[in-house]
């Protein structure tokens, strides 16, 4: 039973693989670049998928184009530029640094720094307040009375 299941699973895996791997490459490095770029380029039609995942015709076209450009020896930057001049910054899952995307790139880090500063300032204030008053928990009047009583004690 278990063996049968294993065989069936293996068959399924084979079929799934066949649907994806239809490109041939000159070498293993190019194949890796293809996989990496296809995973980072976003399908313009089906916006929550990259072009490697999507079955839409436009994603297929872009994969074909990507494959063709890799075969003709284009660099990664050239390929990304090619896509961006046609479909806009939109196709990049990792947007490039520009004055439009600074907020996106540095926003989270800036918020973290602000958070840390606020925590430090607040805790610092608490400490200094606690230090000034002492830990007795007495009001000003009570403290004065205590000091007087202690003085009396010393005088006698």
């Amino acid at each position, binding site marked *: 039973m278990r063996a049968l299941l294993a065989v069936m699973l293996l068959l399924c895996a084979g079929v799934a693989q066949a649907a994806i791997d239809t490109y041939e490459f000159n070498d293993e490095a190019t194949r890796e670049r293809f996989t990496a770029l296809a995973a980072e380029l976003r399908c*313009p*039609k089906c*916006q929550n998928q990259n072009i490697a995942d999507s079955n839409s*015709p*436009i994603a297929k*076209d*872009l994969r074909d*184009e990507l494959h063709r450009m890799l075969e003709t020896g284009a660099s990664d930057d050239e390929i990304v530029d090619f896509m*961006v*001049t*046609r*479909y*806009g*910054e*939109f196709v990049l899952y990792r947007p490039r640094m520009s004055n439009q995307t600074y907020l996106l790139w540095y926003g989270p880090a800036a918020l973290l720094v602000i958070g840390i500063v606020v925590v430090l300032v607040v805790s610092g204030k608490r400490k200094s307040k606690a230090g000034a008053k002492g830990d007795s928990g007495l009001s000003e009047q009570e403290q004065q009375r205590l000091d007087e009583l202690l003085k009396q004690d010393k005088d006698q």
Partner: protein
Amino acid sequence: MRRLLVLLPLALFIGLGLFLWNGIGKDTNTIPSPLLNKPMPSFALTSLYDESRVVSAADIKGPALLNVWATWCPTCKQEHAQLNKIAQEEGVTIYGVNYKDDRAKAKVWLEKYLDPYALNVFDPEGKLGLDLGVYGAPETYIIDAQGIIRYKHVGEVNQRVWEQLRAEMQKLGAN
């Protein structure tokens, strides 16, 4: 100073709320085209009717509409009557890009539903489509007198969209 600090989270919350609220209801399917205000990409493809005639970007003379269509695209069928109307009644030049289609089928379609196009570029592999950044037919572009792409509409051209396109074209004509 401390009082202001207390109000800071509220201010941040309101700011974030406004920012997100602004995004509600926005059409996320239309993506801004980087080709706006750029010349028509160059190409060398055949005319749909005449296999031996090679057409290029020089044949696209604005001001005109450029409509990317195909027989496999249901929305193209929906908008076809509107395109006929625009071409016949308003005398607007419309160029067609027959995108990843079959030449024979496209010819039959135009015979059946009438042909609003001044010229049809046959783009079976979607090469021009790729250079135009087409991601879903139908798409309609406004080309100005200098051959510059000035506007892009993705989806059906109906009466409401046409009025918008006409306003854009008139704005270009006035300049």
